[in-house]
């Protein structure tokens, strides 16, 4: 089976849906974070796929965007995790259902 753009896009869409499902359905804050990371991965896959199957070019533009996104995602994950730890220390829980102090 030869790799085509459609195949990558389908995989990417599947990855995104898995991530979204995880972010929406899990109650644990760390799983939500993981879900978000998965959605980010799907986006990265799209960048690389469109670069690989798009018009031929010398510059590795798609790869570079993906690498930047991964670096930012790492920073974002660090911030997210430290927020979770802070929240846990304060409320003794990471269950997002119970963290509803910002309600109107």
């Amino acid at each position, binding site marked *: 089976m030869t790799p085509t753009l459609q195949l990558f896009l389908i995989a990417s869409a599947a990855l995104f849906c898995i991530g979204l499902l995880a972010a929406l359905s899990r109650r644990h804050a760390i799983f939500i974070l993981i879900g978000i990371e998965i959605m980010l991965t799907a986006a990265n896959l799209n960048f690389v796929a469109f670069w690989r199957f798009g018009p031929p070019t010398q510059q590795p533009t798609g790869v570079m965007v993906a690498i930047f996104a991964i670096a930012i995602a790492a920073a974002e994950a660090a911030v997210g995790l430290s927020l979770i730890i802070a929240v846990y220390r304060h409320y003794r829980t990471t269950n997002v259902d119970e963290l509803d102090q*910002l309600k109107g």
Partner: protein
Amino acid sequence: MNPWIVTNLWLIPAIPLAASLSILSFNNARRKTAAAIAIVGQIVALTMSILAFLPTLSAPGFRAGHNFIWFTFGEQALRLGWVLDPLTAAMLLMITFVSLCIFVFSIGYMAADKNFTRFFAYLSFFSAAMLGVVIANSLLLLFVCWELVGLASYLLIGFWIHKPSAAAAAKKAFITTRIGDLGFFLGLVWLYHGSGTLLFYDGGRGCLENAALLALGGSATSIALLIFCGAVGKSGQFPLHVWLPDAMEGPTPVSALIHAATMVAAGVFLVARVYPIFSLGAINDVTPSLTVVVWIGVVTGLMAALIAATQSDIKRILAYSTVSQLGLMMVSLGVGGVAAGIMHLLAHGFFKALLFLGSGSVIHGCHDEQDIRKMGGLRRLMPVTFITYAIGMMALSGVPLFFCGAWTKEEILHATSHWPKSQAPHYLIMLGVVLTAAYMTRQMIYVFFGNPRAASEHAHESPPVMTRPLVALGFCTIFLGVVLTPAWPWLHDYLNGETARFDLTRLIQPMLFVSLALVIAGIGLGVLMYRRVALQDRHRNVELDPLESAQPFLFRFLENKMWLDELYEESFILWSRTAARLSDWMDHYVWDGLVRGFGSLGQLFGIFTKGVDERAINAGVDESVGGARGLGRLMSAAHSGQIQTYLGAVAIGMVALLILYAWLA
């Protein structure tokens, strides 16, 4: 070149004032310090007065002063200053010396009083204010000190404030003199308007010097009379004399100070000081204003002498005697005998202080009894007081040759006999002299002769601290009698700015025999009427005064001070009360009603706006606020705080966008 003392003359009143202020800062327990400071202050003032006296002897009519600018407003500068002339120097000596004696006497008299320190502070203040009046070279400065004298008299007359009568007397003295002071102040303003200056002597530009006097012209009479109003109030002249007898409510040393050295002397001094205004445009030494002064003096002198003859309170007799003598001084000033009037004022200062302190000693010895009908026989029980009192009495009556009162009275009689306008004052004053001798004899007989009565049985001589000032004043009285002898009338000429010549023939003048005859008549009359009193039984009070049994109506008329107090009560005071009541009524019903009316208008408007606010404006605001609140509630329901709900909403939105995109494409 002025001597040192001229530029530093202000120190004379300033030192007693400083003494007074420093005493006020003590507490009541430091009695000895307080008395010491007051007396030292007075001694310093006396020493400086002697220093000030010496240069005035150097030349006849010596006059030196020091003026300075107090403040400037616009182009005008208000200047004050002090002046040293024979009048000032003689008054300074008399005031400081008599005050000193009174201060020393007070140590004994007030020994038991719990407000001893306050008393000495006030005494010093009184003396300072009076010294200020004397040295002032500006009518304004004089007025300021004049009012301070009034304040001090108020504080001291009401010193025993717990006695309602003392409080009332203090108020009476203050308000009565204030009536006169109103006139004084108007005169002062008018004088400033007319002459442009209030300095007495200012190198030719002062208001008592020719240029300014000429500028005054015809208004001088009115100004003089207005200023005289102040003197009438302060010196207890008719019709404002009513405060003086009531002022006896104060402690006796205060009476002595008021009657001898300070307060009442101020009025006579004022007239003598501004005499050029009174005598401006005189024809034959007569001006309308001086004529008024003469007649007021005559009425006062005679009326007070008559009243004094019927009083039974030892101090009230002396008080009316003072009023009478002040009348005499005014007459003397009015007829042109300024020097004679001032000489009588100085001599009177000494012997009246002596008499008052003597009466204080008597009252002290008789355990605070003041009714002479309950005394008697004190001649043997209080010998020092008796002898000094007798000296004072003879000086006041005018016994010739050895007592100063005689010479000065003779001078006054002499001056009145030359008054061109009328001879009536001359004879009326003679009658006053007879009466004076008579009532003083009456008092002497009641108090010192005969047998002791109820209050004097256990009398005792006063302590040395009280008798020594009496002896000192007694000596001075006799000494003045020698100094004032007409054979060498240096004081008379000193005051007039002339040089005295020694002339023994002037000692024997017709007036001497006239006054001798008057005094003998007066004393004889007194002895004749009251000798029965001296012979009375020891344990009975006198039932009736001999005059009372002879002329009961006249006696009651005079004993009640001619019902002048009652007359004032029924007239001026009643009118002012009625006016006050009317104003109160107006205030209560008319003005108050108006104000209340405006107030209710405001209230009505308030009720109206309240209705508008509640019905119209509030309803609209409430409505819109309710809408906003409902919307807010709706919106806030969406904000559940559930992070996954938000995330889900974002996902649904994204899907919807995708579908929209797919459908449009």
